[in-house]
């Protein structure tokens, strides 16, 4: 180890600066992780949303409100005239974002 040398010299040494740079970035990363633990889903309760879902028996997120089959993704239909599900000849933009619901991709009951 190089011991001694003025503080200015030590600060000027590139590897020390790099160390400071990565320590800084690492500290920020730890802050982000701590933030995620603190304010994230793991720690916090999911809020009133759960209450509302239980009360009303909701089945879907109001994420894509533009079309019936994207508003209630999980209730989307199998192939029928004038009715589609996400990815079935995309018409609305969001239909190209989400995947068709599980029960259409993997019907659990034959003939469904």
């Amino acid at each position, binding site marked *: 180890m190089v011991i001694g040398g003025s503080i200015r010299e030590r600060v000027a040494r590139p590897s020390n600066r790099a160390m400071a740079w990565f320590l800084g970035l690492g500290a920020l990363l730890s802050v982000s992780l701590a933030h995620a633990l603190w304010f994230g889903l*793991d720690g916090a309760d999911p809020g009133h949303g759960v209450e509302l879902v239980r009360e009303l028996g909701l089945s879907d997120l109001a994420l894509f409100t533009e079309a019936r089959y994207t508003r209630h993704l999980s209730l989307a239909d199998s192939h029928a005239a004038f009715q589609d599900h996400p990815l079935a000849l995309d018409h609305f933009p969001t239909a190209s974002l989400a995947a068709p619901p*599980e029960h259409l*991709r*993997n019907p659990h009951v034959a003939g469904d």
Partner: protein
Amino acid sequence: MAILNPAILALTLAALAVSLALLPAAVFSLRVLRQWDMDSGSERQLGLERSTYLISTLVAFAFAVELIALLLFIYNAEALSTQFVGAMCATGVLNVNGYGWPTLLLKVLIFFAAALWLQLNRLDNRGEDYPLTRRKYGLLLAIAPLVWAEAAVQTLFFLNMNPEVITSCCGSLFSAEGSGVAAEIAGLAPREAALLFFGGGLTVLGLGAWRLWRGRGGIPFALGGIGAFVTALMGIVSFVALYVYEHPHHHCPFCILKAGHGFIGYGLYIPLFAATALALGAGSAALHRHVPSLRAAAALEGLRSIRLAMIGFVWFYALGLWLVARSNLTLTEVWW
């Protein structure tokens, strides 16, 4: 379909990149085995010597990727368990098709082979005349097919993930009533398992202490390390796991990796794997201690490996002991 998940994409690309990197390395290994001659000053030998820099860096890089890929693979299997009916943890995901377990086994095998190679490489670089070059590339030739097989099996595993399959999870695979290796291990009486677990631990720690004290016995220590690894895995399935879950019949080696158990599994597996790999390295250093140009280096490297390996083993067994001690589960028939 499942292939388009980022982690799967990363693993597949990593396997592809490593396989490709080992292709020129394998060809080069063949040339080394046939033509390497340290005493020659020919153009060919000079070319070979220059290429060793590239190849050894390339292989070291590829193996470093493999080591991390093993961790990512397990983590990913754990994360995918929400997407399959019946899967509660990584066991269920690995059971989705016939390629899951072979992939994991190959990955573990490659992990140890790669770790051995990396330590051999490190040792070889210490010698003035690179005395282990032939041996090193011979070993590389043996590892390369494993890596290619692993890439193929892993790709098949990911491609054949069919969410319709109702998979069976740890409850049925690791149960004393089932059949197969997993069930055999799970069916081991906790008492025997505990004896094996701590017996293996005492053996390897004793051998390590002997080696540190007397300065000899690196090879027995490496063998002890392998033994400890096997008995430790058996012990986790048939005995430590019970205490972690506080449930007398839950034998899963993967559920301890879950957040619900504080990711304690990583604290167990990572030191165990690292210590075993280091023990293998210590063994190879002991094996080469008579090579003239390596005499000092081998002793030094061996000592370093053993010290680190001992830290890993002590950590592992201490944590295992603590997990048993703090548990609310009492299996009376284990202790008396």
